[in-house]
């Protein structure tokens, strides 16, 4: 079920919130679990079983790892957990990719499995892995209550597109959460903000990307318009979803980690990755990079560790060659910055910002391409090697039509609106005015969002495929 859908907003959410708040505290995790299973089953009825099996195995292995802590058996159970989780991910997400590449290399024709990708498997698998690893490391005790663990893994606000919430971060909240008008209204505001980012900005930019793809009147400038539109689209789509997840979590008493922190204001690629998909970056840092040796090893080994992490990060995003290439692209940029460029970038804010945005735009063109062939074709188009004219009628028309939304998006991708509001709030009168305006704007946006949902048909979530 999509957050940005009428069934979610006007059927599922009111029912769940009513049930949640009238249920006694000790039953609230059960309400979360049942509603999350229903939420997941709405889109993937058959794969609920897969998730239930994953949770059951994770629960049992967590208990066993704790029981045999410091003993060899603990390592074995952890290994089973890793093999099961990575195996499930590999089977459902990458099997056909490996088979088709195997066929291409050997000339054989092994049949593809053509398995539908279970929604959110990349996210909940990583959560499960973090749980068993944290229990193994002794960072957190194993969860004895299966309902609590199942509620954590299946928690619908972040089930299908993150942020990747670590068990250790919410273990206490799973047992004991506080609710207040202040927290609830913060959650509502955040949820509406995320929904607005998704529906008013991301969907419009997504439409523009689709128009470009379908166009037979491409030009160099149209390629660039597409590249900029997609770069903004993916940010508003994904960060909008994270905002919604964080907001819903707050309404239910949870505090999820931030997933984005204005990545497009970064002055280096290193900084960009500290601000973009923070929960995924920190997951790979804590569960792959540091166990491989992290920074505390020789330079060549450190470089190797970075390459491995970014290759995996790329692969995590999809089973096509352009994804690992996208990951390695960033690995190389990060290595270059680490080696010598980082210090030089500090000299000019403007140049460093242009440098980051140029490279990020290129990266997302690779990311969104239809395989590596598509990436080469799109990049050729951008740099005038595709045999298309510099401009075209469609480019001019769609630039005019979508320029306002692009400007809204460019401003919205910076902390400027937030800073302006904070500045006004510094004065007592300003704070009062903002307090009056805020509920009006939120309700106004909610009505506007409903209008777009009632009329619109374009509403995919980009990160559902991961």
């Amino acid at each position: 079920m999509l957050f940005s859908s009428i069934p979610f907003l006007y059927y599922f959410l009111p029912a769940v919130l009513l049930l949640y708040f009238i249920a006694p505290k000790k039953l609230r995790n059960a309400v979360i679990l049942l509603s999350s299973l229903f939420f997941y089953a709405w889109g993937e009825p058959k794969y609920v079983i897969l998730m239930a099996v994953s949770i059951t195995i994770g629960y049992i292995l967590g208990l066993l790892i704790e029981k045999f802590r410091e003993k060899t058996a603990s390592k074995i159970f952890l290994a089973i957990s890793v093999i099961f989780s990575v195996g499930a991910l590999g089977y459902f997400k990458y099997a056909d990719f490996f088979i088709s590449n195997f066929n291409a290399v050997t000339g054989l024709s092994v049949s593809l499995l053509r398995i539908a990708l279970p929604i959110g498997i990349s996210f909940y698998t990583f959560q499960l892995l973090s749980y068993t690893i944290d229990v193994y490391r002794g960072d957190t005790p194993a969860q004895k209550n299966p309902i609590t663990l199942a509620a954590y893994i299946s928690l619908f606000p972040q089930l299908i597109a993150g942020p990747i919430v670590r068990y250790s971060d919410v273990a206490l909240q799973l047992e004991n959460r506080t609710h207040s008008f202040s927290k609830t209204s913060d959650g509502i505001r955040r949820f509406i903000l995320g929904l607005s980012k998704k529906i008013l900005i991301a969907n419009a930019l997504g439409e523009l990307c689709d128009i470009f793809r379908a166009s037979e009147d491409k030009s160099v400038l149209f390629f660039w318009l597409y590249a900029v539109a997609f770069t903004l689209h993916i940010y508003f789509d994904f960060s909008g979803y994270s905002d919604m997840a964080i907001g819903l979590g707050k309404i239910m008493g949870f505090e999820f980690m931030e997933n984005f922190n204005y990545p497009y204001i970064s002055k280096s690629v290193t900084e960009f990755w500290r601000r973009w998909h923070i929960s995924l970056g920190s997951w790979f840092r804590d569960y792959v990079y540091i166990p491989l040796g992290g920074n505390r090893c020789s330079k060549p080994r450190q470089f190797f560790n970075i390459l491995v992490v970014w290759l995996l990060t790329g692969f995590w995003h999809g089973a096509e060659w352009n994804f690992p290439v996208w990951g390695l692209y960033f690995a190389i940029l990060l290595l270059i910055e680490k080696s010598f460029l980082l210090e030089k970038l500090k000299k000019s804010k403007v140049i460093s910002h242009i440098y980051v945005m140029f490279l990020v735009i290129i990266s997302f063109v690779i990311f969104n391409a239809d395989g590596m062939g598509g990436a080469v074709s799109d990049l050729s188009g951008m740099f005038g090697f595709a045999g298309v004219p510099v401009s075209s009628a469609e480019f001019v028309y769609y630039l005019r039509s979508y320029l306002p939304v692009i400007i809204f998006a460019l401003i919205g991708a910076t902390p400027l609106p937030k800073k302006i509001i904070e500045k006004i709030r510094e004065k007592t009168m300003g704070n009062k005015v903002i307090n009056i305006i805020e509920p009006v704007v939120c309700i106004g946006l909610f009505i506007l969002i409903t209008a777009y949902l009632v009329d619109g048909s374009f509403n995919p979530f980009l990160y559902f495929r991961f």
Partner: protein
Amino acid sequence: MNDKIKSIVLTVLSAVMLLTLSVWCIAKPGDDYSDSERRVLASFPEITWENILSAEFMADFEDYSVERFPMRDFFRSIKALSEKYIFVKKDNNDIYSADGHLSKLEYPLNISMLDNAADKFSFIYEKYLEDKNADVYFSIVPDKNYFLAEKNGYLSLDYENLVSYMKEKTSYMTYIDIFDKLSSDDYYTTDTHWKQENITDVAEYIGECMGVDVKAEYKVNTLENPFYGVYYGQAALPFRADTIKYLTNDVLDNCIVTSYDTGKPEKKSIYNMEKAFGKDPYEMFTEGTVALLTIENPDAQTEKELIIFRDSFSGSLAPLLVQGYKKITLVDIRYVSSQMLGSFINAENCDVLFIYSTILLNNSLAFK
């Protein structure tokens, strides 16, 4: 307002809005039919295990929940206004407003569709017309984007190319150019069609080109009910309704219209006043979208017959050609297969007019 009160106000307002609309959705879903969009809306999906396990139920329920949302037209208008005035988008769902008209983007020129149309015309010509001593004519009706799109900065078809391509492909017919006889004022502001009261000169010119005098005096009648054209509902913008005017005289009043769509001939009058007050009042003109229809003129001073291969634009044009013919046969190959026309038409010594709008030529997939 302090922070605490603001938190309470926001929480309560959100909860009230969410719950009110939620209860409304469940207790009183919207109507089965959308007048503004002229279509039946999704109904509640059937609940079966198969439907649920295949997730078909969920997909259908999403359609149902969107299409039956309370105050749907109100919300659609909010979205349209937001697109136009907040996001300053040139079009909303391809509908735009310019020069007091609503219109739909028609772009790009689709050569394969033109080929498809031309192939169908050639087939009909070779099979039913070629050896019948028939005079065959071809005319193209420009859609109103021809007058509105380019000058207002919208994507526009390459009309010149469209016409020359079709002329080349149909060189066996005599082309009648009516582009310069029309302007945007000749079209309804909320609909795709032209106004009958504005095209008498077009009819006269076509008649002249076919060697027939169709000049006549008409009484202009006005329908009382407002006409909200097809673009009105799609645009969801506040727009003034059109008025339908229709032309009558004694000759037209005496005409006998026979529709063959039900399998057996049905006698009707030239304007269907029941349809004039129906969901699409433009269908009042010679029965609207029907496959086969004849107009017989008992007052005709000639034995000449005309066969028109047509789309909906000819509904209002055909009555204006009646003066010059004893019988006009209207054939719409969107609703009858061109393979089967032999049973219905005999073009021996007839005039034959192929007249189609640019929109249909550029989207000719419906031709059978």
